[in-house]
C-alpha cells in the first residue's frame, strides 16, 4: 500500500481556482463550499467521515483568528484546530 507518512494532495477541479481560501479565512457567519482537502490519509479520512467532502456547504460558527475554530456542516458542529483547517480549501459564497 502507499506509504502512510507520505502527504497526499487531493484536488477536485474547482470552477474558479482563484477563489479558493483556507477554512481559516472564513469569517464568522461566512459560508464556503469545500473544494479541496490536503494532508495525510488519516486526516482526510477522518475529515471525510465527519462530513468534509467536496461540494459540502460549511458555515463558520467561531473563529477568533487564533486557536481552534468551530464550523457547522450537515446539521452538526465540528471543532478543529487551525493546523487542520488550513488543509481544507473552500470557495467562499
Amino acid at each position, binding site marked *: 500500500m*502507499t506509504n502512510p507518512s507520505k502527504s497526499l494532495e487531493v484536488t*477536485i477541479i474547482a470552477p474558479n481556482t482563484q477563489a479558493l481560501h483556507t477554512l481559516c479565512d472564513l469569517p464568522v457567519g461566512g459560508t464556503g463550499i469545500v473544494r479541496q482537502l490536503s494532508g495525510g490519509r488519516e*486526516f482526510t479520512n477522518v475529515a*471525510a*467521515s465527519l462530513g468534509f*467532502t467536496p461540494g459540502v456547504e460549511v458555515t463558520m*460558527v467561531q473563529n477568533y483568528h487564533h486557536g481552534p475554530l468551530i464550523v457547522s456542516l*450537515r446539521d452538526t458542529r465540528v*471543532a478543529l*484546530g487551525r493546523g487542520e483547517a488550513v488543509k481544507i480549501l473552500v470557495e467562499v459564497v
Partner: protein
Amino acid sequence: MNGQGGAITIALTGQPNVGKSTVFNVLTGLNQYVSNWPGKTCEQRIGSLNHNGLEIQVVDLPGTYSLTANSVEEQIARDYIIQGQPDVVAAVVDAASLERNLYLLAELLSLPSPLVLGLNRLDVAEKQGLHIEAHVLEAALGIPVIPMVASKGQGVRELLEACVLVACNPHEYLPNRPEIRADHKAVMQEISTLISGRVPEPYPKDWVASKLLEGDEEVGRMMQSSLEERWQPVHDILLQHEDAFLAVASGRYEWIGRMVRAAVVRPKPGQVTVTDRLDRYATHPVWGLLILLCALGILFFFTYALGSPLQAWLELNVVQAGAVWVSTLLAAGPDWLVGMLSQGVIAGVGTVLTLLPILVIFFIGLGVLEDLGYMARAAYVMDRFMHPMGLHGKSFLALFLGFGCNVPAVMGTRIIESPKARLLTILVAPLAPCTARLTVVALLSPIFFGPNAWWISLLLIALPMGVLLLMGKGLHEFALGGEHTAFIMELPLYQLPNFKEIGKGVWQRTLDFLQGAGTIILVVSVIMWALSHFPGGEIEESFLAVIGRALAPVGNWMGLDWQMMVALLTSFVRKENTIPTLAVLYGAGQDGASLAQVLGGQLVPAAALAFLAVQVLFVPCVATVAAMVEETKSWRWTMLSVGLLLVISLSVGVGIYQGARLLGVGV
C-alpha cells in the same frame, strides 16, 4: 455465534453521541457482561435478553464515524461485523444530524449482515425544527427504519422486534445500496476483476475493492499477501487513483442526499438554537476557560466536600470498628490470624471501601458533564494547552481531578476517545499530587525544615507536576510514536442529563472497580501485611525490614537509613502509611517521645528533602496501580509507568542529596 441453538446475535453500531449505550442498556437491563475486545484496550459490552422465548445476544460495538481502519474502534467494529457475522446489525442514528449519521450506514450497507435503522432522538430533531418521515426513509433505504426516543424508552422494543424479524427472514432483506461516484465506476470494476477469486473468506469482494480505492491500509496488506505476484497491477491502479477515496466518500454523501431528500423537512435557515447560544460562552477563549474552571471546581467540591466526610465515617465506623470486632471475636485465635484479618484483610477492604464515596461522586459528575454534551467543549477549550504533549483536552480534566486522588484520575480517562492519548494520560496520572501524599509532606516537612517548611512544601507539590510534563512529553515522543492525532471532533448538541442512565453507568463502573481493582488491592494488602509481620511478628525483624536493609546502599546515596526505605515500601499500600511506619521504626511513643522528637534529628536537610522528593514521585499506591491495570488492561504498560516512576524518583532523590553534598549545603 451465528444461529447457535436458536439464539440470535444483534450487533449494535452507531456514531459516537447518538444514544447507543442508552439503547443497549434499555435492551439488556443489567444483564450485561463487560470485558475487553481480544487483544485490544477497548471495552467490549455484551448483554443478553429473552424475547418471546428467543435467546438474544446483543453486542455493543464501539462508536465510530466510519468503518475505515483509522482507529482501534473502527477496526473492532468492522472486524466483528465481517468475521463475527451477527444475524442482524442495528444501526442507531441521531435524527438531529441525520446526513452525517447515515455515512456509517452507507458503509454498513456494503457488508453482508442485514441492517435495521434506529432513528433515535426524534424529539431533539423536532426541537431543532427538523421533521423526518420514517416510513419515507424506510421506502428509500429498503431497510426497516424505527422511530425512537431511547432516553424515554420509546421505540426500543420496536427496534428489537424489527431486528428479530429481519434475522429470521434474511431472504426478504433487499436494501438499496450506495454506489461509487460515476467517474470512478470503471476503475472500481477493474479492481474487482483483478482481485476476483483471491479475496479471503468471508470478505465481500465489492467491499474489498471499495476499501482498496479508499486507501485502507489494512485491507491493502491483506490483499497484498493474498494476491502475491498479482498485487502489482492492482497497486499501480491504486497509485494512479490516490484521490479515489474522496470519490467514494462523496459518492456516499450524494447517495445519502438522495435518500433523505424526500424524508426530511428542514427548518428555515438562520435559526439560533440553544446549543449555539450556550456555545457562545462555553467555547469562548476567556469565558470558556472560566466556565471550565467553575465546572471543575463544582465537581471537585462535591467529590471532596461530600466524599471526605463519608470516607472518614466509613473509616471510623466500618473499618476500625471491623478491626476491633475481628480482634475481640478471635481473641482466642492465633496472633497471626487476628493480625492478618484485622491489619491485612480489613486494611485492604478499608482502602477499597473508603475510595468508593469519592469514586461514585466522581463518576456521577463525569456522567452528568458527558451527558450534557459539555465534555467536548471542555476538551475544545483545553486542547491548545495539552496538544503539544500529545495529550488530549480531556486529559486535563482527568489529571486535574487526580489532584485529589489518582484512582479517579485513572478511571476518569475513559472520557478520552483517542486510545493513545488515553494511555498516555493513564501512564502519567500517578504524578498528579494526591491528598495522601500531600498529607505526608504536610506532616513531615515542619519536622524536617522548621520555618522553611512552607516553601519547601510548595516545591514538593510542584515537583511531580514538572516531572509529569517531562514524562508526558518523553513518552509521547519515544514510546508512542510522537505523531499528533489531528484535532477534529464533533461538538454534540447540549441536552438534559438522563439520571437513570447515568445511575446505571455509575453502578456498572463501580462494580467493575470492585471486581477488578478491588481484588488486586485486597491481595496486595494481605501480602504487604505478611511481609511486615513474618517471620518474627515484629516489623523490625520482618521480611520487609530485610528488604529495607538490602536496599540500604541505595538509601545511602540519598543519605537515608534502612528505616526510611521500609517507610517508602509500606507507602505502596497507602501513601499515608509512611507516617505510622516511621513512628514504629524510630520508636515514637516509647518514653512519651513524639514522632517529631524521634525523627527531628535523624536526617540532615538534604537527605530529608531527598526523602520527601522520593515520597511524592515514588511508585503509586496499590489502588492506583490496580486502577491502571484495570483501565489499560495491560500489566506491561502499567509496569512501564511504575518502573519509570521508581527510576525517576530514586534518581531525583540521589540527585538532590549528592548535589547538596557537592555544593556543601544542607549536609
